[in-house]
């Protein structure tokens, strides 16, 4: 198992890149990072340590840290759901405040689990075909190729966090 310090270095780099901060409360940040490290060890991915799940990566795809709801929560509340990532405004406010509501729609976990082959980007890699534009949903990195890269060269997010991007939209 990687140490909390090693996992924290990765998370701190992600926060820096996106212009966010980690919670200055060491008990909170240390506890969340410990939880992420435990999930990395047990599940092989950074499942949100503060959310229930059945440990199925395809179903958890939107709650792999940094989760799909982080940016919106930082925008609205100055903190993510766990309060690991915070904004400058949150730091300036100086008080932690109440827990924030869960933004993840219930339909994400109430539905029966999708089979791995049905999950975007999961399963067997697609055969080389026409060039498409792929967007990393973690950091926004764009690339044009037949298939999404195995990991994002910018933020190291895995292949299944890429979505096909329509340039016309």
């Amino acid at each position, binding site marked *: 198992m990687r140490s909390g310090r090693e996992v924290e270095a990765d998370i701190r780099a992600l926060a820096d890149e996106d212009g966010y901060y980690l919670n200055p409360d060491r008990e909170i940040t240390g*506890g969340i990072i410990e939880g992420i490290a*435990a*999930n990395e060890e047990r599940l092989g991915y950074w499942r949100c*340590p*503060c959310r*229930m799940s059945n440990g199925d990566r395809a179903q958890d795809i939107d709650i792999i840290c940094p989760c799909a709801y982080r940016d919106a929560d930082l925008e609205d509340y100055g903190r993510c759901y766990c309060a690991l990532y915070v904004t400058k405004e949150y730091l300036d406010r100086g008080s932690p405040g109440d*827990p924030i509501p869960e933004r993840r729609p219930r339909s994400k976990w109430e539905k029966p689990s999708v089979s791995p082959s049905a999950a975007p980007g999961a399963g067997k890699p697609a055969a080389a075909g026409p060039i498409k534009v792929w967007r990393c949903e973690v950091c926004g990195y764009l690339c044009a190729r037949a298939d999404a890269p195995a990991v994002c060269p910018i933020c190291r997010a895995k292949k299944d966090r890429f979505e096909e991007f329509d340039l016309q939209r």
Partner: protein
Amino acid sequence: MVSTTTVNGKHSKHDVMLYALSTCIWCKKTKKLLDTMDVKYDFIWVDQLAGQDEDDVMKQVKKHNPDCTVPTMVIDGKTCIVGFKEPEIKKALS
């Protein structure tokens, strides 16, 4: 029936059940608060369950908190406090 862990405390006026995740700092803080308050309570680490046990416990949580978020604390089978809300917890258990 999934077995829960009972933590003994001086104050046992209320029946307190805590559904928590072992990876969640807010769940741990809630548990620590109950320890500090010296309240008797039962808890389950939901993420350490599997199969039928997990399904059964999720159903219990859902009954009180349809969003199934944690920590979920159920007091006397009716009052439900979701999240680490220190003043609310203290008030309900005083």
